[in-house]
């Protein structure tokens, strides 16, 4: 029961309010305290340089956590234990993060760490990500951590420096967008299909200027991995962040993780976390309703994540510039079938879909089957911890026996800056989050999909509805 004197507030407002060092005024933005900054090699070097140039120290190294993920190779080290980077610059960037973290006393999970992984996979796995926190990273998919009821968002390198130096950011208060998702998901449909459907519905700029809160029976029924997949892609509709109110599922996931509170602290933390939810009667600036029962396995057909169709629908036709540009780049004919398009590469990985649940789903579908000849499949676990768990369950062997490659953790072909890339014109079915032109390699054509759809497409060598392989089993 909320006190009658307290106005009803949303989850976002509660977390925002707790972190105000100074309120916003007509002339100045709010000063928002940041509980945790996650760092990686690509967007941090210039920020550390700036601090050095000004003679500033990192204010709270204990509130920083670093990893190497973007430019690291996913091929194993050679017999001397040496990792071979795609370019000397990539190695130099990683080396520089090591130096910067050592000089500033920041915990860095490098090659020798059992936790190392994609920044948005590692943080939650270690229990560093907790409800009610403010979390930033020089990376737009930081919204992933909102799955725990944290306010988590991506920032640029200048702001990475601001947080290193002051643990604060200058912020104007964003708007709120409630997305209510109700109903049970159909067989073969998961969180990735839900979020692709949502982005398709509201558009690539439908969330601009807003923090999303996802709620409703579909969201409550999701496990943490699924919630992370959903929150992860909030940026793809332009939103600053995506959040889910913490509940028993959240607490059960966090309990016992290395950085989660322990003992008496745990009980106190859970009591507090339980208050982090939107009050009845609180209003969002905008509310969108999604009927989850209607969502089909979904894929993108074009060159941004809002160009989404159900997998069994025809590829749109249209005469507007955006549609023509997309069809031209994707080498698709408007009105033709999506299902059945021949696939060159399948990528399972990225901070959207590289967690144990994703790997299990894909492996289950692939068990005893083979990747189609002429199709290449890369499976890249999100972290060392995920890799170990997957290997303990024998998932790696299922992928390897199917003819897929099982790689070392990292961002890999999600942004293809480490050398893992698709060739010009290759059609890639990818569980990552961006299908921009050239994202996965120059001229590469990306179809974003769920792990199930990716696995089914790998077996068939064509874009395939996972139900084709699932129905036979039930």
């Amino acid at each position, binding site marked *: 029961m909320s006190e009658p004197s307290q106005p009803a507030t949303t989850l976002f407002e509660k977390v925002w309010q707790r972190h105000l060092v100074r309120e916003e005024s007509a002339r100045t933005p709010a000063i928002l305290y940041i509980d945790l900054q996650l760092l990686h090699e690509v967007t941090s070097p210039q920020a550390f340089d700036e601090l050095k140039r000004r003679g500033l120290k990192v204010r709270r190294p204990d509130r920083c956590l670093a990893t190497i993920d973007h430019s690291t190779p996913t091929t194993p080290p050679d017999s001397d234990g040496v990792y071979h980077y795609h370019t000397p610059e990539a190695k130099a960037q990683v080396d520089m993060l090591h130096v910067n973290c050592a000089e500033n006393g920041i915990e860095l999970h490098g090659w020798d760490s059992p936790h190392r992984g994609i920044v948005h996979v590692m943080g939650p796995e270690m229990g560093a990500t907790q409800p009610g926190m403010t979390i930033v990273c020089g990376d737009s998919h930081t919204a992933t951590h909102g799955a725990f009821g944290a306010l988590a968002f991506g*920032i640029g390198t200048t702001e990475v420096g601001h947080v290193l130096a002051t643990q604060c950011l200058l912020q104007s208060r964003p708007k709120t967008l409630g997305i209510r998702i109700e109903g049970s998901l159909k067989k073969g449909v998961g969180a990735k299909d839900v979020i692709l459907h949502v982005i398709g519905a509201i558009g690539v700029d439908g969330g601009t200027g807003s923090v999303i809160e996802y709620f409703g029976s579909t969201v409550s029924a999701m496990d943490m991995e699924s919630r992370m997949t959903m929150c992860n892609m909030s940026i793809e509709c*332009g939103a600053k962040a995506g959040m889910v109110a913490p509940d028993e599922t959240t607490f059960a996931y966090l309990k016992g993780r290395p950085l989660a509170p322990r003992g008496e602290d745990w009980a106190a933390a859970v009591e507090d976390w339980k208050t982090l939810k939107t009050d009845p009667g609180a209003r969002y600036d905008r509310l969108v309703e999604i009927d989850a029962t209607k969502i089909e396995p979904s894929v993108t057909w074009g060159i941004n994540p809002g160009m989404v169709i159900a997998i069994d629908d025809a590829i749109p036709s249209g005469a507007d510039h955006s549609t023509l540009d997309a069809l031209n780049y994707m080498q698709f004919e408007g009105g033709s079938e999506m299902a059945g398009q021949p696939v060159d590469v399948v990528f399972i990985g990225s901070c959207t879909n590289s967690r144990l649940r994703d790997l299990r789903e894909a492996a289950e579908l692939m068990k005893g089957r083979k990747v189609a000849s002429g199709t290449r499949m890369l499976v890249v676990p999100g972290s060392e911890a995920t890799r170990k768990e997957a290997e303990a369950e024998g998932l790696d062997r299922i992928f390897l026996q199917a003819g897929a490659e099982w790689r070392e953790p990292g961002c890999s072909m999600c942004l293809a800056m480490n050398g893992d890339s698709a060739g010009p014109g290759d059609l890639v079915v990818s569980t990552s989050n*961006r299908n*921009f032109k050239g994202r996965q390699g120059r001229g590469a054509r990306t179809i974003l999909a769920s792990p199930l759809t990716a696995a089914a497409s790998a077996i068939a060598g064509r874009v395939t509805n996972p139900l084709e392989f699932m129905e036979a089993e039930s």
Partner: protein
Amino acid sequence: MSHPGVVESSTFCLPVHNIDTDQIIPGQFLTTTEREGLGRFCFYSWRFDESGNERPDNPLKAFDSVSQQVLVAGSNFGCGSSREHAPWALLDFGFRAVISSQFADIFRNNSLKNGLLPVQVDESVADHLLENPGLSVRIDISSHTLSVEGLGDIEFSLDPFSAYCLTRGIDQLDFLLENEPEITDFEQG
């Protein structure tokens, strides 16, 4: 370093919606540890083919960094990745301002921190500019006005704090550092 407060130039137009930061600077160039010299990678895949030769259909072929410092682009400019390399590359390439009917939040933020002006206007104004490439424009930060040849003065919104910092040469990190006592109080809670 303070911004002169005014940008006066002809426009250069890229009439494409949803230009993402992967287009502005592709991921392969993010291994740099510097912020300088990224202009050569700006819109790289639009300008060069796989072997590094200029593409015959390069839409930036006619770009002149002296006379065309204002980029006009379709809506939702700068969507996608948070890479600050995008405004660094645009600035180094020669742009001082971008006009669009909508900017992605992180890109807008990153641009303002580097003195690249994101000028958001109504769709009708953006359409007019896109349909008439090369118009002379004048952008005045302190009065928040965009003057367009043949259209007159149009007010645009610019976060007042960023505008103030830009024109006065106030560094946002210095501003934050001045609040150190309050930050310490907050931490001690």
